């Protein structure tokens, strides 16, 4: 029997605010029901007039004014499925859906990486038949790491093929990051690329920044405790945009294979955010912020690299084998 006294820490999983938006499927700023007006479309306006002159009714029209719709660069990338992915030496496919949120035709540069050396990305391929299963004969990496040109609203399925690359047999966790970005350009919303839009007009970076990333927890799943951190953002306008005063809900899911004692979860409050008082919960039960009788506390003086705003700590104590405990807390973006 394993004499357990383990400490689980997520200090290494600090999420900067910059990453907060990237972890999420971007919230579209337009109606899903109606396709955005295609780039290059002329908007033509003429008013009609009527008036009486000397008792006779006359009608005429105004001048005609025309503006051309520019290309808005936007993309979304969503993982199909939830939870941590168990990766073994056998290739494991993790499915994603990439959607062209542009109002023009666009190709996207795609890339995948893992955070720890015991895992490797064997390939990032286009799932030709969209079945979510890896068929090495048909599901191929796109040329130059770029998708084919997608029409507005068009989606394609991607598969990140992961393998475990070490043979130690020890337990390990890491994250897989898959990124897609418009080849025309990306970056700060509103940035423009003169003459690069469809039809020779300008292209403008849309609210998604024309870049999307998804982070997926991965594990060897063999033994030992593991901790997965995820987050969701809710802004005052109901969107998922990581803007000032938006509330980030962090979820820390601790999974244990064996019974342990003294398990403890600590997490610093990310820079640029403040802890929302009274938001700490363990398995859905509220915990007071004070270091008192219950299992958790918020310590505003807790110091950790890069965390000026204190941190939360939850003592799980004795944990049964095969247990799962979930800690949640909220912070507000400043």
């Amino acid at each position: 029997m394993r004499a357990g006294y383990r400490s689980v820490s997520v200090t290494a999983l600090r999420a900067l605010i910059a990453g907060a938006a990237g972890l999420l499927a971007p919230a579209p700023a337009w109606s899903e029901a109606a396709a955005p007006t295609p780039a290059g479309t002329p908007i033509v306006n003429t008013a009609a007039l009527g008036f009486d002159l000397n008792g006779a009714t006359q009608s005429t029209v105004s001048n005609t004014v025309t503006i051309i719709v520019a290309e808005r660069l936007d993309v979304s990338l969503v993982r199909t499925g939830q939870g941590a992915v168990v990766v073994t030496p056998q290739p494991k496919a993790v499915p994603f859906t990439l959607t062209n949120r542009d109002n023009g035709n666009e190709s996207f540069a795609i890339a995948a990486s893992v955070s720890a050396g015991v895992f490797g990305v064997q390939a990032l391929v286009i799932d030709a038949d969209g079945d979510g299963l890896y068929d090495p004969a048909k599901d191929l990496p796109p040329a130059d790491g770029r998708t084919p040109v997608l029409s507005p609203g068009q989606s394609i399925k991607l598969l990140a093929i992961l393998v475990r690359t070490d043979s130690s047999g020890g337990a390990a966790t890491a994250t897989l990051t898959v990124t897609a970005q418009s080849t025309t350009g990306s970056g700060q919303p509103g940035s423009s690329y003169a003459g690069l839009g469809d039809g020779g007009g300008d292209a403008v970076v849309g609210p998604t920044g024309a870049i999307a990333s998804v982070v997926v927890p991965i594990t060897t799943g063999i033994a030992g405790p593991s901790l997965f951190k995820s987050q969701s953002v809710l802004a005052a306008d109901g969107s998922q945009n990581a803007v000032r005063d938006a509330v980030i809900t962090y979820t820390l899911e601790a999974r244990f294979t064996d019974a342990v004692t003294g398990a403890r979860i600590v997490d610093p409050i990310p820079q640029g955010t403040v802890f929302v008082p009274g938001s700490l919960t363990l398995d859905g039960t509220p915990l007071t912020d004070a270091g008192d009788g219950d299992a958790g506390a918020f310590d505003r003086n807790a110091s950790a690299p890069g965390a000026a705003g204190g941190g939360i700590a939850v003592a799980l104590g004795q944990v049964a084998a095969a247990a799962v405990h979930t800690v949640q807390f909220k912070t507000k973006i400043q």
Partner: protein
Amino acid sequence: MITRPMIAAVLMATTASVSAAAGPLQVTSSILVESRSAAADGTTRITLVKPGKVTPGDKVIFVLAYRNTGKQPLANVVLANPLPAAISYRSANPGSPAPDVSVDGTTYGALDALRVRSLDGSTRAASPNDVTSVRWRIANPIPAGSQGQFAFQAVLK
């Protein structure tokens, strides 16, 4: 030799009755966007400028500037602006009288007085997205040389 210029003059007069350029009521339509800048007193100043790049979701301001260039007052003036298909109505622009709106191009009124009929025959309250046309009626005759403008906010679909 005399008839030709006379025919030309008649044609010009006919054209004038349907052309904006020659009529006594001139209306200039423009599509503008808001430009925000910090004023010296710390407030934000909003000015309307010609759009650089307009993309779906952007707010645009439709401005109708009118002027009576004739020598007599014009009565019962009506300005109607059918919306381009890719444009969703939002509201009157601040400072402009609210237009009557229509969801069918026939019946005009205040938005909250209009209803939209669904395919199954039921009706629901109209929303700004349902508006297909806006219209202003100018109650008093426009004196010669007088001018004014109307404006409404919209969003590019």
